[in-house]
């Protein structure tokens, strides 16, 4: 189990390193998409037969445990939000915050029209293969 957790930690740190390096190169000094790179890295490693052959068998348990822990962590994160400042931020903050959310919600179906339609079919084929 610890191997999966260690793999996860390794991926996250390498991903954050790439993200920070990108931040350095662009002169922002912050992390740009570190988590995204970490996710891709974990996907690549766990999808590679060569890499999973090296890993001790139980590694999946460690990954599954933390995947299941995602929602509890999100609940704890929600409980640590600065909700008071969100509500005290005044009408401008609330209007602006809501306006951009509504805009994004309206745009999702517009973009969906352009998402490749054959995805679902291909996924089925993959499942059968």
């Amino acid at each position, binding site marked *: 189990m610890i191997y999966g957790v260690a793999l*996860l*930690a390794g991926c996250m740190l390498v991903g954050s390193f790439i993200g920070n390096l990108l931040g350095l190169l662009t002169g*922002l000094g*912050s*992390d*740009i*998409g*570190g*988590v*995204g790179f970490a*996710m*891709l890295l*974990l*996907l690549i490693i766990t999808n590679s037969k060569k890499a999973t052959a090296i890993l001790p068998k139980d590694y999946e348990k460690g990954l*599954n445990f*933390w*995947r299941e822990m*995602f*929602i*509890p*962590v*999100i*609940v*704890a*994160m*929600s*409980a*640590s*939000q*600065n*909700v*008071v*400042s*969100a509500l005290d*931020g*005044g009408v*401008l*903050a*609330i*209007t*602006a*915050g*809501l*306006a*951009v*959310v509504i*805009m*994004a919600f*309206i*745009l*999702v*179906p517009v*973009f*969906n029209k*352009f*998402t*490749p339609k054959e*995805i679902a079919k*291909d*996924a089925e084929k993959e499942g059968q293969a």
Partner: protein
Amino acid sequence: MKDVLDIIVKLFTANAFVMSFLIVGIISLFSNFVAAKVTRGRIHASAIAIFIALILAYVGGKVTGGSKGLSDISVFAGIGILGSSSLRDFTIVATSYGAKMSEIKKCGLIGVLALLTGVVLTFFVGAITAYAFGYTDAVSVSTIAAGTVTFVVGPVTGAALGAESTVIAISIAAGVVKSVAVMLLTPLFAKKIGLTTPGAAMVFGGLIGTTSGTSAGLAATDPSLVPYGAMTATFYTGLGCLLCPSVLYFIVSLVLR
């Protein structure tokens, strides 16, 4: 009796992190009960848990006057560790285990497009709102607009442009409102906006950003969509920090001259 109470408080504070598992467990148990019995499964248990957590965060903030919700109350400090951005990112990375690489590859391009559109349009909607509320200088308008991108981009942009601290505070508040709104509204509108496929989740994450909001909103909608939405959302703040104080501010300063 007071001594016993002291022991309990001491135990809570000394084992704050361990305590947080128990507290979140109790919230989840209660939410599951409400979801099954009161809403008859119409509302996802996670959505109820997040809603309760936000109410607790409000109570915590009111009681202590701090900025970290419930975790500012010392006996609940562990909630802040469990819900820290480090553990949030750690578990988000874990959700990608089991995601389909093929889906991400196929929707990669539209995801990137959604990301660019999301940051730019959000900024301008935010800018128009700020202008409508009487802000006419480019620095203030851009800072508040950047805050609507995410609550990280707001202060970063404000600091870079030399905005007033009250304006920066508004920009942070706007970002927090956005994040909380995404948490609560996503499960309610997911079906209406077609947020049911991995591809749509990638578009959603790109358009709306806010890793906290997207991950919590999708968790309360359909947990299997989380990795796809989080994948694009995680680049949003970085892109915002890149564009807001530079190109987007430049455009605003041209318009408001």
